[in-house]
């Protein structure tokens, strides 16, 4: 059934909320059904947990919330709770006659949105819609917050670094801060997408410099920038990224002590990737995303395809999407610490906290890392502005994952810490229910994760190939485009750009304004 999610009309909103009630007690089932009907909800009852799970699996996206008893003969309520969280990611409310704190805590730990004590009162049931709404809001914000900029990828790499203990506490703190900010952002769910073009970013940076980095704040920047349509939130999130990026630069600067040497010290430990950027990226499959020290990066070891010698770059002016020898995204980003107004922002920290219920059992699919992508994947990334190839999804769940640290380029080797970050991003690329028009179906994004085959089977279900028509409040497009940008062998070009202080990034990614963040900021690579 199609139901429009119209949060602004909150009075009308909870009506028709689709509830699945699971309880082995027939008396309770009948009573709850009656109560929920009185709340104008749409109720489906189920006396067995097993059956409930099957129902949910079959009729995915046909329910908004599940209310379940804790004690059931065929399956423990907590187990059911876990399953639902994992597979369908629906909000679940537990009920029990037993109100013991330990039980309640267990419920919460397993991801329950709420824990009601029996006998349940009408007023408690009347309020359950808030959990649904809250969850959707949360997801929308997450998706919006996930602007896949090069900075994002950068940060994801950071996750790998984190794993190795290379992240500073400050970085981590900033990550958290950023997350908090995103999470607590109370702005309307539908935000206009802001494309941080080179110019806009320049404006931003100058504003920051003018105010003084120490005294900077989103409001001040916003005022100074004086860009119509730009919101405080846009600036705030951009600022966070910027800060993260700078701190990262700083750290790397300290560590690598390379200052300005972008290309000079670049030190390929592997045979340089083919200068021929047009060739298949397969070659790069084995390169990791570890940046070459030459770029002022902390590269523990560079199995990575290091940044090509300058000569290479100069030779290969072709802008190629399927970059094969692009250095890791991050490399470009953290070019040096010499640019105080570096424009490449680190991406938002991705935390698993946004997905508490998701233990993400699926392997991450796409390696969005620039250099070493499989040709197909490069296509996906770069083509996001148009349509990603459907077949991309056949091999794995439709998730954009950053497999930065994987030296072998094998997606499945993603390290745990990275997994988390990736999981955090992943909802973005999950298939979206075709019926979504607003954030109506956002929750299904995760749900569809596990039902890949279903996704393909169902007509009208949006698969990766349909990503473009995604609801506009998703920043996916721009994000992905940005990633695509990085994929570009344009990086080769960009090296030139770096050196020549490229003004616009419009040449990248085939001239589309894919790349929101200027990959290369003159200042960065000066």
């Amino acid at each position: 059934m199609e139901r429009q999610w119209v949060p602004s009309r909150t009075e009308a909103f909870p009506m028709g909320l689709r509830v699945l009630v699971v309880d082995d007690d027939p008396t309770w089932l009948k009573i709850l059904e009656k109560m929920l009907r009185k709340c104008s909800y749409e109720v489906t009852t189920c006396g067995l947990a097993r059956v409930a799970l099957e129902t949910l699996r079959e009729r995915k996206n046909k329910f908004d919330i599940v209310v379940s008893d804790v004690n059931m003969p065929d399956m423990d309520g907590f187990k059911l709770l876990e399953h639902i969280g994992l597979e369908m990611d629906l909000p679940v409310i537990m009920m029990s006659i037993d109100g013991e704190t330990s039980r309640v805590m267990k419920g919460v730990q397993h991801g329950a949105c709420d824990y009601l004590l029996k006998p349940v009162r009408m007023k408690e049931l009347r309020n359950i819609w808030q959990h649904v709404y809250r969850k959707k809001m949360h997801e929308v914000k997450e998706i919006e917050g996930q602007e896949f900029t090069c900075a994002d990828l950068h940060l994801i790499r950071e996750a790998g670094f984190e794993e190795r203990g290379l992240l500073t506490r400050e970085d981590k703190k900033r990550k958290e801060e950023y997350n908090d900010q995103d999470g607590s952002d109370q702005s309307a769910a539908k935000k206009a997408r802001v494309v941080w073009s080179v110019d806009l970013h320049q404006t931003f940076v100058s504003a920051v410099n003018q105010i003084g980095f120490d005294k900077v704040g989103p409001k001040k920047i916003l005022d100074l920038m004086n860009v119509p349509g730009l919101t405080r939130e846009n600036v705030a999130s951009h600022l966070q990224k910027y800060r993260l990026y700078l701190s990262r630069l700083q750290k790397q600067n300290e560590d690598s002590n390379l200052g300005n040497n972008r290309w000079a010290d670049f030190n390929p430990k592997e045979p340089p990737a083919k200068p021929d950027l047009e060739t298949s990226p397969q070659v790069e499959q084995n390169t990791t995303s570890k940046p070459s020290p030459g770029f002022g990066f902390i590269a523990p070891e560079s199995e990575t395809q290091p940044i090509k010698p300058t000569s290479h770059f100069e030779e290969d002016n072709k802008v190629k999407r399927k970059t094969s020898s692009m250095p890791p995204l991050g490399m470009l980003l953290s070019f040096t610490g010499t640019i105080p107004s570096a424009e490449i922002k680190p991406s938002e920290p991705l935390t698993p906290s946004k997905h508490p219920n998701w233990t993400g059992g699926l392997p991450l699919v796409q390696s969005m890392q620039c250099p070493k992508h499989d040709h197909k994947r490069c296509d996906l990334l770069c083509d996001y502005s148009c349509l990603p190839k459907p077949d991309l999804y056949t091999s794995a769940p439709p998730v954009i994952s950053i497999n930065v640290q994987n030296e072998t380029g094998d997606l499945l080797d993603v390290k745990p810490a990275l997994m988390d970050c990736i999981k955090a991003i992943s909802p973005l690329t999950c298939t979206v229910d075709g019926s979504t028009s607003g954030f109506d179906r956002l929750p299904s994004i995760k749900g569809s994760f596990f039902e890949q085959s279903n996704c393909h089977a169902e007509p009208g279900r949006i698969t990766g190939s349909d990503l473009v028509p995604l609801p506009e409040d998703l920043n996916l497009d721009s994000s992905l485009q940005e990633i695509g940008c990085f994929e570009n062998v344009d990086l080769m070009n960009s090296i030139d750009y770096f050196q020549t202080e490229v003004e616009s990034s419009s040449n990248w990614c085939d001239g589309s304004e894919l790349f929101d963040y200027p990959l290369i900021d003159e200042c960065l690579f000066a």
Partner: protein
Amino acid sequence: MDLSLLQRTYSDLLSSLFTEGILNQQFTELQQLQDENNPGFVYEVVSLFFDDAGRLINELGSNLNQQVVDYKKIDAHVHQLKGSSASIGAQRIRNVCQGFRDYCEANDPQGCFSCMQQLNQEFLTFKSKLETLFKVEQQIVASGGSVPMIQ
């Protein structure tokens, strides 16, 4: 029978059920849930309870009579019964269940048996009183009258 008398009888009966603690607020909630769409709602729910609880109590009885008493199983049943009885506001039954669980936990056969007896007693009382209540209610409705609500 006179309608007003019927109604009087009904009210008194219902009041006493509350006073004696056989029923509690939850029952009133159920009554409030009942509406024109579903005039027999309370009756249906209580009937469901009769069946379900009856079954559970039989189970309990037979489990207790085993050579080796499985307290875990008994506890599970009692827990179920506790939940059921709470659903319709059968307060006394619920309370007995509470005590019953404690004895189960302590693996106390004496305590369990005594609870079992109480349970049987309470259930029978509950069943008969509510059946009477429903009968009177039906008569009121049949006479075209309205069923008085408590409070």
